[in-house]
């Protein structure tokens, strides 16, 4: 059967002479590929761990998802160390940000491949090219939605969580296929072309990569004069990754390091005083009638009996204080001193001696996180609190007044604010 395209490549980008940058070549692509092979698995693993941290099997924690075969469930999310989610999600967002310049450089380095000629050589070649569409689309989708979401930019117009989660599966599937096909090329290239030798050349000594012992269509046949050495290119990519790494790390580590995250969304304190730390959802945006959190507020605690407790009654119960982080899915964290009643003590008041799962409901109506279920381990942790104060002061409205839940190690939105009711089940 004759191919439906001419044997010779048409003029323009389909010809190897069109691509003139002397820096492009298998060594450069292999270096970027190796860097991505380190960062992308970290991002993927911490991303899937984030899904596990929401305990999606409990109650309505999967926020409308009917769990299917891809929603694997490894373990009940632990409460210790209390900074566990701050670490995993901080890594997810921070390494994700730092990967952006590496990914852009990698895409640049392989552009000529987009214009391969002949466009299709065999069925195997066809499926490789199809997989590349999913690889580029998957990477673009995951990075763009992630970057928009951490900045509260919801222009994409769909529910972020499901889109980003299943998009990750599309990207990972395409990535596994790509790495399986290219890994040996990468290793061979780094072995035969010597790992760091090309970095020694200054701009005037920068030549195209040698076409011996193995030619590659990435090496230009008609190279332009170099305007930049490989050292300068890699240095620029590394500097970009470093700057973004600092932005993410500052937001995640908090404290004095937060100042470093000067372009990141939670790089500063929104308010002064004991309640001055970062907010994910303000009271004004929660759609709660201020009358609901006034004098008339009381907490309904369901167990084997129903108990109603006012804020004064809650403050009269034994109080405990713990330093615990709020760790947002958006990658920022903030550790504060929380004071309140142990959840296990409240269970006992409602007649449940050995509490199992707990469901907490917020006064907030419109949020998909208005009702959260907690595991037996989370309820049993002595630091799992119904918090009434933070840093010695009553909670502010933005931080959940009259009362909020604080669970060590849990994702930020599971620290339910403006609490209306707790429902304990027996173990």
């Amino acid at each position: 059967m004759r191919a439906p395209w001419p044997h010779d490549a048409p003029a323009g980008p389909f010809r190897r002479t069109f691509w003139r940058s002397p820096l492009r070549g298998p060594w450069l692509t292999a270096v970027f590929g190796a860097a991505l092979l380190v960062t992308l698995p970290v991002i993927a693993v911490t991303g899937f761990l984030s899904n596990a941290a929401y305990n999606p099997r409990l109650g309505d924690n999967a926020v409308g998802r009917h769990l299917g075969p891809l929603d694997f469930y490894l373990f009940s999310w632990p409460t210790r160390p209390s900074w566990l989610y701050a670490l995993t999600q901080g890594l997810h967002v921070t390494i994700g940000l730092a990967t952006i310049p590496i990914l852009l450089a990698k895409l640049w380095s392989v552009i000529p491949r987009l214009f391969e000629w002949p466009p299709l050589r065999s069925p195997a070649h066809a499926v490789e090219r199809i997989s590349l569409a999913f690889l580029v689309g998957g990477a673009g989708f995951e990075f763009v939605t992630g970057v928009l979401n951490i900045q509260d930019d919801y222009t994409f117009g769909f529910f972020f969580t499901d889109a980003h989660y299943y998009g990750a599966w599309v990207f990972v599937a395409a990535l596994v296929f790509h790495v399986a096909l290219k890994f040996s090329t990468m290793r061979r290239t780094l072995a035969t072309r010597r790992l760091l030798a090309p970095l020694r050349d200054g701009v005037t000594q920068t030549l195209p990569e040698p076409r011996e012992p193995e030619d590659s269509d990435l090496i230009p046949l008609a190279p332009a004069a170099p305007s930049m050495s490989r050292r300068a290119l890699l240095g620029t990519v590394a500097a970009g990754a470093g700057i973004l790494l600092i932005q993410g790390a500052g937001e995640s580590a908090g404290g004095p390091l937060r100042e470093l995250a000067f372009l990141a969304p939670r790089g500063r304190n929104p308010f002064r005083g004991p309640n001055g730390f970062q907010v994910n959802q303000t009271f004004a945006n929660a759609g709660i009638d201020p009358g609901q959190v006034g004098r008339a507020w009381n907490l309904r605690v369901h167990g084997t009996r129903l108990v109603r407790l006012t804020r004064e009654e809650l403050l009269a119960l034994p109080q405990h204080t713990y330093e615990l982080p709020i760790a947002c899915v958006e990658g920022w964290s903030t550790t504060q001193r929380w004071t309140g009643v142990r959840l296990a003590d409240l269970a006992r008041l409602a007649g449940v001696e050995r509490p199992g799962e707990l469901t907490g409901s917020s006064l907030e109506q419109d949020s998909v996180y208005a009702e959260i279920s907690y595991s037996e381990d989370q309820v049993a942790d002595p630091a799992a609190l119904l918090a009434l104060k933070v840093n010695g002061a009553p909670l502010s409205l933005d931080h959940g007044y009259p009362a909020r839940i604080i669970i060590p190690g849990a994702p930020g939105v599971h620290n339910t604010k403006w609490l209306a009711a707790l429902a304990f089940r027996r173990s």
Partner: protein
Amino acid sequence: MLTRFRRAYGAGPLHALLFVVCAAVAALAIRRWFDVGGHDARVIITWFVALILAHDLVLVPLYSLIPRLLSRTPARGPGPARYHRARLHLRIPALLSALLLLVWSPLILRASHGDFAARAGLTTHPYLARWVIATVGLFAVSGLVWLVRAVRSGRGHAPATRRS
């Protein structure tokens, strides 16, 4: 049998097997978008395809055009090494500044202003100024390094620039 498969398919059976497995996982994930919400799924697919096209039709021309425009070397002027070095010290901070703008554009260009103010209790107001300051800082650091290198090579400490 194996040889015939190789000839017809263009690669070994492992290649085909892995493709089937990965394609099945991707198909399952795409199916899950539709299970969760039909409207969202259509918007998600649109974004997915738009991002592939954005890479092919925007990023690729940009990537191949910019270096072409930037790499014109003047016929006269200082020697190529010194010229390259000076240009590099403008190019690198410009690239880094563009990267910061690309990543933080919702805050810098205030695209997410409303939602950010409502959710975080913060305004996007400082970000444009911060990005400008960061850009000035990047050019300043780069210029300083250039100056130090120029002075040192002028004194003959770094003869590399006099080559060629």
